[in-house]
């Protein structure tokens, strides 16, 4: 491994950690504009994180070591995933460590740890949130897998760097299976990141919470780490979506040097701006579903992905 690829890996990880809260802040701004409210400042998430890190942790007397370790484990898995996903370049030393199926598994690890931590204190809301989060998780996995299956059929690999390189050589923008897979991926990403229409990230009604219910007992630096990890998860999903469907600007094999890296950073920021605005638009246009409509929503996503698969097999494109 050459030294330059380690440098680029480091740049990518630092950029991911730094930009993720900004991405969440941008989405909040777009939502406020669309809902005709005055927007919070763009850097508010950073100020919130700083405030939380310096507070004292208020820990329940019954909390175990699992509860205290989970925020670190969540942050660790999300940072590692950000290091593996090729958001800027494909020639990363860590890129071959996990293919896309293993990345989905890594997200599942984070979800299981958070659910276990929610059950640790033993309140009604924690166990409720854990149960619902695991339910959404197990319904979303088949749909996500079918999207990755689609990508495999198109480019012959499940490893993200190979997918990006493959797209460069055979771009097929208006392939119906790609369109179906993209829509299915967006639906699953909304479900997994606790966005409307599955979960409202800014709700205060505990009985309707899924993700927020698991965070009720966390405070100070633990809460800061969990929030940072959640925004990193959204960032990671966005980058996986870009790698699968819109990998323009990513520096592929052979493009070394500072120039392609700067172009990749600019392209990533541009794509994130557009993706954030689109996400805010979808959230503002939809209503939150009842919890037992969530299986129907995810079944729809699964259906779209499978249709994409079948259409690809039939049309032979």
């Amino acid at each position: 491994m050459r030294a330059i690829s380690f440098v680029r890996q480091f740049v990518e990880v630092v950029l991911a950690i730094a930009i993720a809260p900004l991405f969440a802040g941008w989405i909040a701004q777009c939502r406020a504009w669309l809902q005709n409210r005055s927007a919070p400042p763009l850097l508010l998430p950073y100020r919130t994180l700083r405030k939380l890190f310096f507070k004292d942790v208020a820990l329940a007397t019954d909390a175990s070591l699992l509860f205290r370790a989970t925020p670190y484990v969540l942050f660790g898995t999300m940072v590692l995933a950000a290091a593996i996903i090729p958001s800027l370049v494909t020639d990363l030393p860590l890129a071959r460590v996990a293919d896309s199926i293993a990345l989905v598994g890594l997200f599942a690890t984070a979800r299981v740890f958070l659910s276990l931590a929610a059950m640790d204190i033993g309140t009604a809301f924690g166990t409720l949130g854990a149960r619902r989060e695991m339910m959404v998780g197990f319904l979303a996995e088949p749909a996500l897998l079918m999207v990755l299956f689609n990508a495999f059929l198109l480019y012959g690999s499940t490893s993200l760097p190979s997918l990006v390189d493959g797209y460069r050589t055979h771009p097929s923008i208006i392939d119906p299976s790609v369109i179906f897979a993209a829509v299915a991926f967006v639906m699953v990403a909304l479900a997994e990141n606790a966005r409307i229409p599955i979960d409202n990230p800014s709700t205060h009604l505990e009985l309707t919470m899924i993700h927020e219910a698991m965070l009720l007992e966390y405070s100070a630096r633990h809460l800061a780490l969990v929030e940072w990890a959640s925004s990193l998860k959204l960032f990671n999903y966005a980058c996986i979506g870009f790698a699968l469907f819109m990998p323009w600007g990513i520096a592929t094999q052979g493009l070394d040097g500072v120039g392609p890296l700067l172009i990749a950073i600019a392209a990533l920021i541009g794509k994130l701006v557009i993706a954030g605005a689109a996400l805010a638009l979808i959230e503002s246009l939809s209503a939150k579903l009842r919890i037992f409509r969530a299986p129907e929503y995810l079944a729809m996503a699964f259906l779209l992905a499978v249709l994409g698969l079948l259409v690809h097999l039939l049309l032979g494109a």
Partner: protein
Amino acid sequence: MLLSANHWISGLAETLAVNDLHFMLLLVAAWMTLGFAGFLRPHSIRFVARFLFPAGALLCLGVALLAGLFLASGQAPQAVVLPLGLPDLPFHIRLDVLSGFFLLLLGVAGAGISIFAAGYFRSGEGTAPALLGLEYHLFLASMAMVILADDAYLFMVAWETMALSSYFLVTSHHRIPEIRRAGFLYLIMAHVGAVCILLSFGVLQGGSWQFTFDAMRSAHFAPFWATTAFLLALLGFGAKAGLVPMHVWLPEAHPAAPSPVSAMMSGLMLKTAIYGMLRVSFDLLSIRFWQWGVLLLVLGLFSALFGAIFAAVQTDMKRLLAYSSIENVGLIFTGIGLSILFETSNMHLFAALALTAALVHSFNHALFKSLLFLTTGSVLHATKQRSLGKLGGLIRHMPWVASFALIGTLSIAGLPPLNGFVSEWLLLQSFLFTPQLPHAFLNMLIPLGAAVLALTVALSAYVMVKFYGVIFLGQPREPSLVHAHDANWLERLGLIWLAAGCVLIGALPQIVLSAVAPVTGKLLGNTVRSSSTFWSIAPIAQEQASYSGLILLAGILSVVAITFVCVRLLAHGRIRRTAAWDCGYPWQTCRMQDTAEGFGQPIRHMFGAFFRMERSLPSASDDAPRYRVYIEDRLWCGVYLPIARGVQGLADAIAVLQGGRLSIYLLYSFLTLLALLVFVL
């Protein structure tokens, strides 16, 4: 490094003119000796538990070491004929790569279970300690003989010994009627399976009336007879493995048995059935058909989904784990079915990938399922509770058991970087190639099987969060739970061994892959690349997919450590302990957290068609409202009970013959004599 050790040992063995097989038989004989040695001091639990069981564990390690060396050296199969058995059919014994792999599995998992059992059996549990030791070691020895057998007679003798010794182990607490009932059901199903296996061997001998496996390998069959033999073997071995619809004994027998016995049955005995299936379909039968592959695939996926769904609604912790075993066996059969399907379509590399996934999953399951059953044993000893509704919060009082149970839970849920994920990943990778199958409808239908597989694995994560969360986390649901004590040092040793196996194989899956490679090479003629570099596996090609458990584990741990240090340095580490927030509600009790039924409610709601449910709901005017839900298996009511009634009816009809009067019986003898005179003369 392993190879050089093997060279040294084989050099030594050559000078002594013995080979691996002789060592193996010596170890098996040593187990049986240990079993009988218990009778020297029949009622001393200390002698049996503290001395004989650890010795048995050491023998397990020896078996594993021998098998591992045999696999690594890639020698030709070794066979021996023992002067025991029938006059014209002595015992044939053979050690080849397939039996070597399963002996490795037996040894590694058996060592952990035996050490745990040494610390677990504190009183006779209803049977004399010597009998317990005898049955236990006979069980181990008979499983090894099943794997080593090279003719049908020895196979059936060892199979029956396995069934009988495990029956006696299951009914250790024989004074409780439910346990006797569960043991009886187990015995019936075991014998139904054994009859099917016997019939299958009868078909396989192909007219030569030689029952050695060598003769069966060289026989040629018409497709009809080959299919008959395959189906009979599937019925027989599926009944022992717990494949739906022959699974009904599993959820009864596993909870009834003491925990180390449940671990052995789930971790080891089910794998002997897998071994039998592989031996018959890949080794003894020389032709296969793609329809068999589809049948195994469908049965396997259905069993997996069925097991996961039923596990989600259980309220007894050992029944939950039993249904989870059904799920994992379904996954293994799915891999075997895919392998047959690929092989009959001439896609040999992918067949090797699917078979590798099935074998690696067998190995992983032996490790993590045994670990989980043993932790439930510790919980049972500490709390005397089996029902999930009376446990909770044990992580504070039993930290060692809770940590190992956490590793087991994360493994069985198929989460990276532990070992369960490796086999699930390999199985998913093999599904990715199914659209290339040449059959018209199959190449579109079978990819949907990948979705069912993903659903099942994610559902097992759900089930395991329920298992771990309800038992170890939250508030204690019974006041007596605060007196729970942790496991003793022998139990901890067994748990450490199994948990370390899970973590090691998760980080370095090349170890198991290199053990599996000779097996697929022999059975299919093709292997996947077991490792392209030291730290990652890439079964087909590096560009197509690769996985590195070691770097994932190291990465997560290092990022966690760096984050912890940074937070402590840049901010502070102050903590203030208070009451739980709970949104400001002041009267939180232990009954407000989820029960086991509550956690399974979404599954009950969504998959209600699978169950037969009886619910009694309280009404608004009840003085003492009660909520009761009772879930039963539809297959039990729809298939087994009618069969039982039919058999009972038939038996009642035939019982008419037993008139009770002596003259009637003399009349039967007279009529038989007349008939013989007519037909013979």
